[in-house]
């Protein structure tokens, strides 16, 4: 009996060690990027990322470059990311919630068909469509514009799915009450149902904003000129075959993570509930 309880304790200890190791694996990269961002970029080229902290050599020069480096291009990237994230998120929430609500609350011809189409879009990686979408973007003058980044993915199938799930739980009696009071169908949505769906909007705002802020593949293709790039695309452009500009890259990466981290610390629950409703139990 005693040996059994010792065995149990040993297993628990081993598990704890494993969890700590994995937590270090998860957080370590962010720590090293942060500490490296205070070192000169030439140090990165010579030695890579090192365990030594060398506090004496650390300084804030890389952070000054955010304003001064390459004519302050980083500020353009930041501005573009903020605008695209804001407009993209607002548009996506409005459109996706309308679609999700419509699918959940009305019975109409073609509803199941539409639902299957949404599943198909969800299951098709957009990476497959980069060439035809690029060709279309040239034809409709989307290249190098905000609308070109935002519009093709403004209706997010995941968000539609999420809103449909959430709206489905609301009582239809609210709608009937609205009709009796003489509201139009859209009045019912905007005045009665949308306010009831606010928690869903909260969770989706965070997830959509995060995915817009981090978006990589499509902006990489549709954005061309340096002043139009978003943060991830601008930062990757510093990795060139002719040598990498680590000075600006490291401080730039750190500054691009900070806003999401702040939002995450304030709304951890919303992140997680937004992720899990997506159909795991479906």
């Amino acid at each position, binding site marked *: 009996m005693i040996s059994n309880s010792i065995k149990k304790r040993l297993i628990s200890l081993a598990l704890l060690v494993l969890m700590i190791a994995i937590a270090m694996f*998860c957080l370590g990269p962010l720590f090293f990027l942060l500490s490296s961002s205070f070192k000169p970029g030439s140090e990165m080229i010579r030695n890579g990322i090192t365990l030594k902290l060398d506090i004496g050599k650390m300084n804030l020069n890389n952070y000054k470059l955010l304003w001064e480096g390459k004519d302050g291009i980083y500020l353009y990237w930041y501005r573009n990311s903020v605008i695209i994230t804001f407009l993209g998120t607002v548009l996506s929430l409005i459109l996706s919630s309308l679609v999700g609500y419509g699918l959940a609350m009305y019975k109409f011809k073609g509803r199941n068909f539409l639902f299957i189409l949404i599943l198909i879009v969800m299951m098709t990686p*957009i990476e*497959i469509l980069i060439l035809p979408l690029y060709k*279309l973007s040239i034809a409709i003058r989307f290249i190098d514009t905000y609308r070109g980044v935002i519009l093709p*993915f403004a209706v997010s199938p995941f968000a539609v799915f999420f809103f449909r799930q959430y709206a489905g739980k609301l009582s239809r009696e609210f709608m009937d009450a609205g009709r009796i009071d*003489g509201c139009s169908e859209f009045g019912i949505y905007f005045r009665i149902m949308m306010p009831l769906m606010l928690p869903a909007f909260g969770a989706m705002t965070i997830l959509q904003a995060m995915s817009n802020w981090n978006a*990589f593949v499509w902006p990489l293709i549709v954005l061309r000129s340096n002043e139009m790039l978003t943060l*991830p695309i601008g930062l990757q452009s510093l*990795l060139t075959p002719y040598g990498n500009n680590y000075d600006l890259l490291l401080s730039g990466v750190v500054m691009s993570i900070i806003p999401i981290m702040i939002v995450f610390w304030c709304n951890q629950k919303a992140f997680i509930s937004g*992720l899990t409703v997506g159909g795991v139990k479906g």
Partner: protein
Amino acid sequence: MNTGTMKNTNLLPGKAGMKVHLKQQKIAPYIFVLPFILSFSIFFLYPIISTVIMSFQEILGPKDVTFIGLKNYRNMINEHFFNAIWVTTRYTFLTILVLVPLPMILAVFLNRRKTIGRNFFRSAFFIPALTSVIVAGLFFRLAFGEQDTTLVNMILGVFGLPKRTWLQQGSTAMMVMVIVCTWRWLGVNIIYFLSGLQSIPVEQYESASIDGANEWQKFLRITVPGLKPVIIYVVTISVYGGYAMFSESYLLFGPRSPGDIGLTLVSLIYQLGFFENNLGAGSAVGITLLGIVMLINMVQLTLTGFFKKESD
């Protein structure tokens, strides 16, 4: 149903008003779903049709297009293509091998009341998922760099192991890609498994304890079968995430990797389209990839009984 109940109330608007309402109720849903119909037609259906057409064409310029039948597909079958399929498939397989069992076990630990610091660990595991792929790409590119002093080589040095040029050899390059993927998605998969664990009834564990089952037996007999829907879901998203992999390879190796070690199917589409200006050949690879993904999805949906549910 909702209109049926209204007929018995005295609060009804006049007959004419009722008609307007019914008409509105018939049209309204189509207006609600219109954004999806438009975006689906313009940004999904049209591109698919146009890529199918392009895959049968030689495109030298906007006006210089010739129909060449299956030539793009015939030309596609070469060393690069097979290499891309091999890299992509191996990558997908390995990521599933890591990203199903590991998060499942971690989720089980995180779900136990006894575990110390549950919230801390859950957040710690999840934080990488908040960052853009550039963060993972930059860190692992540096950490697996070729310098003797860089993180991984330095750690190997401590154990007296030989240093390597990680990002220039096929087998180690694959390993780094799988590590990057694990870093980015481990926390997300843990959240999926954690939510799956909440739906397994506690009574099952209690009665198993009465029958004298140990922890390991409970895990195999109750937890794993109970998590089956989550396992299927995670495998599905891993399959199409794996086959669509591009950014990680792009950031680790640049648009063209040495000896094609990081060449995935999407990287091949990107190279053909944007470096060789060969939209036709790129489209042929795209259609092939679409076929592969659709096939896997069909198999998966059939296995999970999705089509049965719909036909009821």
